[in-house]
């Protein structure tokens, strides 16, 4: 009678026991190995936690800046001209008192030359074309009537 492949309850206990003795090796990790593995894991988890926190803070800051830049045109429409909002200066990379396409180009040139520095405009942890685009977007919004 063919053996039913679905049932293996009749596997000999003695065979299972001997297989266990043969293959279930009595090996233990040294305390030094334990500690090395755990220390590296903790360092990794702590490092990722810090990075995540920094990204969240940067992201929140960028969001505040973008929202403020969008709201300023409404607020300032009925107010007398005033000095540029301090937050806009973050995007004023060439420090000419205005945020425009020239700032976006300045960042692009810096990236191309490998001198991107700390201009992570969108808070994603890297300085690349997306940060150039972020400045360009702000410049366009500011062009639509924000005080300079």
């Amino acid at each position, binding site marked *: 009678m063919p053996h039913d492949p679905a049932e293996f309850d009749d596997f000999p206990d003695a065979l299972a026991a001997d297989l266990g003795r*043969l293959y279930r090796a009595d090996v233990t990790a040294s305390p030094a190995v334990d500690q090395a593995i755990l220390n590296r894991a903790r360092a990794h988890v702590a490092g990722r936690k810090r990075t995540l926190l920094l990204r969240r803070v940067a992201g929140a800051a960028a969001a505040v800046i973008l929202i403020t830049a969008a709201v300023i045109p409404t607020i300032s429409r009925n107010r007398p001209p005033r000095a540029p909002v301090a937050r806009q200066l973050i995007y004023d990379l060439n420090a000419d008192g205005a945020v425009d396409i020239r700032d976006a180009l300045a960042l692009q040139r810096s990236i191309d030359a490998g001198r991107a520095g700390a201009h992570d405009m969108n808070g994603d942890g890297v300085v690349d074309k997306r940060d150039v685009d972020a400045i360009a977007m702000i410049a366009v919004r500011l062009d639509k009537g924000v005080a300079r």
Partner: protein
Amino acid sequence: MPPPTDPRSDLDLVAALNAGDAAAFDALYYRYRDRILRLAYRFTANHADAQDVLQETFSYLYRKFPAFRLTASMTTFLYPVVRNLSLELIRKRRAATTTSADLLEEMPGFAAAPDEAHARADLAAAMANLSPEHRQTVLLRFVDDLTMEEIAAATGVPVGTVKSRLHHALAAMREDPRVRRYFAP
């Protein structure tokens, strides 16, 4: 020194780790350390290599965080990692044995009475006579106590294939004069 046994499930420990609780990794480590080490030793037959594989396996695991999703049992998830790391190590060291004597030297518990040693050598040789897939399936089921579903998930084959491999492995062992005695009524 291992901490007191953590009552949290693997899923809860994974969630805690994803949330940045580094201590949850300690619990996972001590929960699976010995099993991983034994499995690595089974592949590598070398204490130092097994400890290397242990370190690499847990390095692989903690690098998965903080976005890790455990969709199967931890054993099922880690088995292919241990296997692949072990095989990579073996390929580097070119360790291969096929004779009963060689197998006997590698097997734990070798230092036994002559009759017992002879019996173990026979069993080791009979196991070596199985294909790698059949041998692996037998060991996962009857030494590591994995269920059919866990074996299927760990080895990447359907449950039906696992059952078929077990069926053929046992049939081969029943016919092998070196271990036929286990199946005598």
